[in-house]
């Protein structure tokens, strides 16, 4: 049983009467998850905001047609991942400076890590630097691989849930994950050595 079923059905009944209270509840339940996914895929706050807005716009317009063939959360994740990837593909998104750019490419404004709201508990410079470099490595992946890394390691979805979100087999999830790790291995190995072995 989908944990969101009751709320979604309430929303489906209320929306034609322009009653948006139930949708407000859904929005509150999902806004952080959606924003987190779009932020990690796009790599910056402005694009993440655009993609998250688009996600909720699509949800609002299409929720009446949702038939619970998959979990509601999977549907929301799918829309969010696609919105973030589409934004980057259309070239609307802001580009990351190349990894090889050295320390001048790691200024906080490029990935908004310096944003007070995002900084959260990561106060130490080393940890912040690691976060920036990991985010940069994720952003250098192709959109498909980026999506799978975010769903697995940032959102903590199981392989089965990811296959439902991306509408592909578990074998495909595994092979994409292996490819993503192979790509991250080359970019992150030096960073991890520096942070964990020094």
């Amino acid at each position, binding site marked *: 049983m989908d944990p969101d079923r009751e709320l979604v059905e309430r929303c489906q009944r209320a929306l034609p009467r322009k009653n*948006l209270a139930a949708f407000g509840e859904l929005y509150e339940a999902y806004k952080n998850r959606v924003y987190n996914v779009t932020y990690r895929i796009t790599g910056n706050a402005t694009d993440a905001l655009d993609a998250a807005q688009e996600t909720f716009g699509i949800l609002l317009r299409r929720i*009446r047609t949702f038939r619970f063939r998959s979990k509601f959360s999977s549907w929301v994740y799918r829309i969010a991942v696609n919105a973030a990837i589409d934004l980057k593909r259309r070239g609307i998104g802001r580009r990351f400076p190349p990894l090889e750019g050295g320390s001048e490419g790691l200024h906080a404004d490029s990935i908004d890590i310096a944003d007070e709201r995002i900084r959260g508990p990561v106060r130490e410079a080393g*940890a912040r630097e690691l976060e920036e470099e990991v985010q940069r490595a994720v952003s250098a992946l192709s959109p498909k691989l980026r999506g799978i890394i975010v769903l*697995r*390691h940032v959102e903590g979805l199981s392989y089965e849930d990811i296959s439902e979100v991306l509408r592909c087999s578990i074998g495909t999830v595994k092979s994409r994950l292996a490819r993503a790790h192979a790509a991250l291995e080359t970019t992150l190995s030096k960073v991890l050595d520096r*942070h964990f072995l020094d």
Partner: protein
Amino acid sequence: VTRCSELEPEILFRADGEGDPSLDAAVSGHLRECGECRAYEAEARARIASLRALPRVSAPPALDARARREIEELVAAPETARERWVARWLEKLPRLAAPAELGRRVLEPPAVRRGRLIRFAAAAASAAAVVLAGWFALDFIRAGSEPTFRVVESKPSDLRIQASLSLARSLGGVEPGAEERR
């Protein structure tokens, strides 16, 4: 002999907590013997830990404002006739799958719709072929061994031959007297 490259993915999935239990003993055995794979596993674990350590980012207040604007726009926008029609059916018959399915298909993006249309056309063509084959078989059985369709030999009428000859003559393709020879 197990090659390291064959086990690499499984070592990664195991480090990620989603390893195949049936391969667990083989992977453990290999890791005990292979230092290179142990290093690969340690690095995979460190990489996964660094990804999981990325802090969760909360939605900024700006998203609330934008979402509210989106909602207001939708409430203010008049529904199209199609949306109204779909919504009415979905509301009236929530327990029946057919109208819901219809509504979903109508609202689907064109690419998805095209894929479904192709599948539907292929299914329809197969069904038509089966029906036709059945119909011919039934017809053959009913008529015994004698086929119901025969080749009818037709003789061209004199009038038609006459017309053809005069046309050919006017084009200069027939010698005078050909009609008499016939």
